[in-house]
């Protein structure tokens, strides 16, 4: 909350209460608990920095191991020709997540809890169980990526995976939301290294800029591979857990009504950063395209790029894969733990110590530990897991987004001030129809491949 004070008021009366400017209410003499600044721009900047976090984290954590794989594959198969898609996805991700932030600030509750309250137990349970299931399967893919990347660096999976899991658990059990947030923001900023890697692979920036601004398809036949990849990019950029995560995170951070504009800026910057990082991944994949390198996963590509681009690129891609998986794991596990804890009526907050919210932390720890353990099972059918993620994400994303849109049009819940405007609804319904169609296409391609030749 921002207050405008007169300096001598602070000393004469103590702390002023309320969003002053127009009608200051003076309280008894208590110390000022906030930061006092003298310039308008300073308080705008400081307020933004205090609100900043959930938007960046939800967006950048979406550049998880699966996303690294998808974007690098896009670059390796089609060069820079699909970069325009990232620019197109920027406003889409922003508009979806802005609704989530608005709903979280207005109600102070998580998304699943709102579905339970307004649409009943059946839809609530469906959303919760599907979310938990798809999140868990995604966690397995994150640990698989950690195992894969670190094994290329000479670290045994039997060391890498348990150590990563232990680190991820330690990250949240300290009983401090702010500590968790600051560390995770630091991990997000490590992703700036993707730009250095893109620079190191000598990308042709003029062509890249052209392909970003001018939509076009790769030369040759538009085949099922291309359609699949485009759908996968869209599905990767807008993941179902993001809706649940950001609403819970905003509630956890206790953002206030006045913080909405800063939460929107946080979300917009997060979306822009994430899309730019995804573009850098495509540029790295493009090096594989230019050298006709065949690969099955990004770790394999990174190793193959070593002799061409040097150790910095090789090790950089491998370590950033691990960072992506760690970011994805902590955000996805928290999305599950917040949602489950809230529905069950448990204490479900990172502000609580582990003994104050044992069930909440148990869900987080169980998700992380079980996914890590499954990855260590020999001959684990990872392909089945990846396909299942796509199928169940196809179930949860359209339904979660429909509920979000209906909740944001719920006058009884939000009143006139917080509901969607008409232009909001036009944009959002268009996004929803496109996402429904793409999810259906993706599911059909995965489950009925014969349809696509």
């Amino acid at each position, binding site marked *: 909350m921002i207050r405008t004070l007169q300096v001598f008021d602070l000393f004469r009366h103590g702390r002023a209460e309320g969003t002053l400017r127009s009608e200051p209410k003076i309280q008894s003499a208590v110390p000022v608990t906030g930061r006092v600044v003298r310039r308008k721009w300073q308080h705008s900047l400081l307020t933004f920095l205090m609100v900043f976090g959930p938007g960046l984290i939800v967006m950048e954590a979406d550049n998880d191991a699966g996303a690294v794989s998808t974007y690098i594959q896009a670059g390796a198969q089609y060069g820079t020709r699909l970069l325009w898609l990232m620019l197109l996805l920027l406003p889409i991700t922003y508009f979806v997540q802005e609704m989530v932030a608005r709903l979280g600030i207005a109600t102070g509750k998580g998304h699943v809890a709102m579905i339970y309250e307004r*649409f009943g137990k059946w839809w609530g349970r469906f959303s919760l169980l599907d979310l938990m299931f798809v999140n868990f399967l995604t966690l397995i893919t994150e640990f698989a990526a950690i195992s894969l990347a670190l094994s290329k660096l000479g670290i045994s999976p039997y060391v890498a995976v348990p150590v990563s899991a232990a680190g991820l658990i330690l990250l949240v059990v300290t009983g401090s939301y702010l500590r968790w947030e600051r560390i995770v923001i630091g991990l997000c900023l490590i992703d700036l290294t993707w730009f250095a890697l893109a620079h190191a692979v000598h990308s042709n920036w003029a062509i890249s800029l052209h392909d970003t601004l001018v939509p076009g398809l790769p030369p040759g036949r538009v085949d099922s591979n291309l359609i699949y990849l485009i759908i996968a990019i869209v599905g990767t950029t807008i993941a179902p857990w993001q809706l649940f995560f950001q609403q819970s995170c905003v509630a956890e951070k206790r953002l206030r009504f006045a913080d909405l504009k800063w939460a929107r800026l946080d979300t917009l910057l997060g979306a822009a950063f994430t899309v730019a990082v995804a573009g850098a991944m495509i540029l790295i994949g493009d090096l594989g395209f230019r050298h006709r390198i065949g690969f099955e996963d990004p770790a394999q590509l990174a190793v193959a790029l070593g002799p061409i681009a040097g150790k910095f690129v090789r090790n950089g891609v491998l370590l950033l894969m691990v960072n992506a998986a760690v970011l994805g794991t902590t955000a996805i596990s928290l999305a599950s733990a917040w949602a489950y804890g809230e529905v069950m009526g448990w204490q479900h907050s990172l502000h609580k110590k582990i003994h104050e919210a044992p069930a909440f932390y148990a869900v987080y720890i169980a998700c992380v530990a079980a996914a890590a353990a499954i990855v260590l099972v020999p001959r684990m059918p990872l392909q089945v897991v990846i396909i299942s993620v796509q*199928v169940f994400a196809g179930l949860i994303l359209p339904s979660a987004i*429909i509920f979000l849109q209906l909740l944001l049009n719920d006058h009884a819940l939000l009143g006139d001030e917080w509901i969607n405007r008409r232009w909001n609804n036009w944009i959002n319904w268009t996004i929803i129809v496109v996402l429904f169609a793409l999810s259906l296409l993706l599911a059909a391609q995965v489950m009925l491949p014969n349809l696509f030749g």
Partner: protein
Amino acid sequence: MERLQNTQAMEVFEVVHPLRDKAEKKLQTTGLGPIEMTTGVKISLMMLRVYLTLMTFMLVYHVAGLAGILGRH
């Protein structure tokens, strides 16, 4: 805070971190009951059911195919 020992009437701004501010009263959601079933809500939920049914059929077909029940794959 020391800098504030200036007695001139000068405008300053106090910025409080959301987690250190007093709790804000949010919109009341409990006790509202189920959402009003307007035409828009009904159509949306119906479309969602159709979509989920279609997805379920595809999933069952796929699993049946994998299990060899349909004599394919």
